[in-house]
């Protein structure tokens, strides 16, 4: 039986700002590849070849990426992002079979997808520590009886992963904007929706969740080494190093680590497990980087320590920068949330030497100029700020 997949990648992912300034959440790189790409790989692994992606926010960026995928993908546009079910309906004219609906910004492993394909109408579920960010589901004998979307007080830890396997005729019944509401109306009209437990599922609600997702997806990397690697460099575990990289003498890299193309790392640099480094990144001598996502075109100057950081494209960290992990409360938009990270930086941030970060979020294109050093702890700095 053929199944089509519809990936919903139109939303921005506002809670992941400042990282989603130039791309939607689904394109954020985790283990050096966009989340969307990990997802399409899972789909291909369980034999689904007919993939439709709904795009919206920064759609050109998504389309540009999709062209390079090994599977042909069809694209439809959702002009206004008013809901997941509405996004699915945007693709309706291309759907002729049963359909698997997936959020483009979550990772689901192929085994879970295969499992959900077994039952006719199903929702993938899992347990989560913070259920109130998701749709909380009530289950009776393996079938869904209720979905409460982002409740203020969640009564149970079982949540929907947002992955739905629906038979083709159900599409005509959708009149709601959100998938959770649509599924509720299926249930009230007597359709049985099975609840299928996911093996492996990763979502990032807030930027620091990306670090966890990164660590998980790094486990699946294939190690390969290209570029120029000094004979005195020590490389242990699963490490992949891209084309044209230069790994200087006495550099130590402990996998799992991925490094993109054209990076210059070392001499005397230590890279610890759980680190993804994009393309054209420079890491100067005597620096330590661990458990971080460093995106393209970043520069980390000498004598720096960077842990639990997410650096957007084109960031520069001056000499003697210290980024250390810490927990605390942050004011993100209108809500106050519990966070735990070193630093989250948007694109193009410049940070002068001697700044230390702990549990902070720095907006896009910020300029942090501290001649005599500066300590930022549990701070949120908005886009385009100059800190003098």
């Amino acid at each position: 039986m053929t199944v089509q997949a519809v990936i919903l990648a139109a939303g921005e992912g506002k809670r992941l700002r400042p990282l989603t300034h130039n791309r939607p959440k689904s394109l954020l790189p985790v283990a050096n590849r966009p989340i969307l790409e990990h997802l399409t790989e899972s789909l291909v692994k369980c034999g689904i070849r007919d993939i439709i992606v709904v795009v919206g926010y920064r759609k050109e960026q998504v389309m540009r990426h999709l062209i390079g995928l090994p599977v042909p993908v069809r694209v439809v546009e959702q002009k206004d992002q008013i809901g997941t079910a509405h996004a699915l309906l945007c693709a309706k004219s291309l759907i002729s079979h049963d359909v698997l609906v997936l959020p483009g910004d979550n990772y689901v492993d192929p085994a879970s997808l295969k499992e959900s394909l077994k039952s006719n109408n199903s929702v993938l579920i899992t347990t989560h520590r913070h259920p109130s960010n998701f749709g909380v589901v009530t289950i009776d004998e393996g079938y869904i009886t209720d979905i409460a979307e982002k409740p203020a007080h969640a009564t149970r830890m079982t949540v929907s992963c947002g992955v739905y396997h629906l038979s083709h005729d159900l599409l005509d019944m959708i009149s709601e904007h959100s998938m959770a509401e649509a599924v509720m109306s299926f249930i009230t009209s007597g359709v049985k929706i099975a609840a299928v437990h996911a093996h492996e599922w990763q979502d990032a609600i807030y930027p620091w969740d990306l670090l966890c997702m990164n660590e998980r997806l790094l486990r699946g990397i294939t190690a390969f080494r290209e570029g120029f690697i000094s004979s005195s460099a020590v490389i242990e575990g699963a490490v992949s190093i891209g084309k044209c990289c230069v790994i200087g003498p006495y550099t130590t890299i402990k996998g799992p680590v991925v490094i993109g193309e054209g990076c210059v790392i070392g001499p005397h640099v230590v890279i610890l497990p759980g680190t993804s480094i994009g393309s054209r990144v420079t890491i100067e001598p005597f620096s330590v980087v661990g458990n971080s996502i460093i995106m393209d075109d970043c520069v980390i100057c000498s004598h720096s320590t960077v842990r639990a950081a997410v650096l957007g494209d084109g960031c520069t960290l001056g000499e003697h920068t210290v980024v250390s992990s810490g927990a605390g409360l942050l004011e993100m938009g209108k809500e106050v949330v519990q966070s735990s990270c070193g630093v989250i930086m948007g694109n193009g941030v410049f940070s002068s030497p001697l700044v230390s970060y702990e549990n902070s979020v720095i907006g896009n294109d910020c300029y942090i100029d501290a001649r005599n050093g500066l300590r930022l702890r549990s701070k949120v700095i908005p886009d385009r700020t100059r800190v003098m």
Partner: protein
Amino acid sequence: MCGIVGYVGYRQAAPVLIEGLKQLEYRGYDSYGIATMCDDISIHKKAGKVSDLSTGSSALQGVCGIGHTRWATHGIPSDLNAHPHLDCTGTIAIVHNGIIENYAGLKRELIIRGHSFRSETDTEVIAHLLEEVYDGDLLMAMKLVVPLLHGSFAILALSKGNNQLVAVRNQSPLVLGIGDDEFFAASDITPLLEYTNRVVYLEDGDFADIRIDGYTFFQGSLMVNRPVHEIDWAPETVQKGGFPHFMLKEIYEQPEVIHRAIHSLNDSNLPESLRKARSMTVVACGSSYHAGLIFRYLLESACGIPVRLELGSEYKYNPVPSSDVIIGISQSGETADTLAAIKKGTCNNVPTVAITNVLNSSITRHADDTILMHAGPEISVAATKSFISQVGVLLQVVNLLSGRSCDDILSHAGFAIEKVLLINFEEAVDLCSSADHIFYVGRGPFYPVMMEGALKMKEISYIHAESYAAGEIKHGPFSLLSSKTPVIAICAPGPSYAVMLGNLKEMKARGTPIIALGSEDDIELIELVDILIPLEPAHTYIQVLTATVILQELAYYTAARLEREIDKPRNLAKSVTVE
């Protein structure tokens, strides 16, 4: 400048030909036609674009056929003038790309000998000439006819009753695609990508005899072997992938393209003739000429090497300059004028370097050295990513010749372009789309950037756009300024900033609306101009690239607002293969 395709194999030929023609449409789109062989030769041809095609023609039967998409040179675009052309008896059909220079004389002789012509094209004479000598062996007939023809041509022919194609090439591009038990012929490799990655490039003067069971090449009467090349272009690169136009897709590919272009050249593969040169001449046409102009400004100031710039079409009227090397820039590698310049250099013992996007194109075979710009196939007629990659390659040449002083700057060029892609052009588009005339002004290396910007605007939005060096405006064009002629200017901090700001104030005093590319922190500029498009402060090399992309996008969005045919602007074709 037309595109031709041919097919022999096991598939139905018509759909293959139609799809192939769609890929070749950038070469011309006045009219199209196909002919297939099945007991008899059946022909379908029409004025108009092949992409607007009604379903009728794909129903033609047969496993052998030829097709053509036309950019009119002789005779108006009409159903009759569309290729393929038949002889009087309907036994031979041909398609042709190029120009038969002596067709008028041949046509008079043929009419006297009793042939009746249906079209006004130069091509039809070939069909009638073949008819006179054809006795069942099409290849032999072709060998007898070709010596009579003067000019440039790539010809595909088929005859009634045979599943056989005969191909001839002389100064117009033609490649043969080799599949499993099937063969393709086309003006370039894009139509072949879907079926095979093995191709053979025909040389000038080659005849190819193509049948279902194999192919043979002849140079005159001598049988020759031509090497089979493998192509690494992926078929996805010639699909739109959800983008409304190829042009926008290609604009978005530029961050990656610039990296490839810059990395393609390093100390070890920089042509020796460039390294040694104490003077250079750059020959190019259109956008490539603008890339050359930017190169002149930057190389002269970085290395003090004088660079002379020539338009390809004018170069033949010049004596050969005494410079040490001639650089020919052509995206397609088939631009006739640039090709002629390279040949002129070779004839006069001047080393030549070709900068092109197409491996094994004509220019690469005539130049001593070739630098590939690795932009990937460009389908949109208006050059975007190929221009950026030309500038990228030339910037890297400047960088290498000046001792790699800018490696760090160039390696992050893509990131700078990514940022430009996020700019919102709504306001500027409002202003431009309602104008009839737009002036582009800049100074220094930004002057050619403006020339390129104006060219893009003209090409795709059909708005009259002129570029001037800012200082020249007062020598005449000033009289054309009014409140209805927007001026687009680059006013970035740098040596020319103060003068440029002065120029803008003079224009503003005449009520001219101004769109400026400048720093967002520049309050004086913001107060002066109507719309400011942010141009990040950066090294000149980077600003040249980012400003180019800004102007490409401005032209694109203006044309999109006016609902123009962006990928195929009227009357144009991508590679200009006639002089």
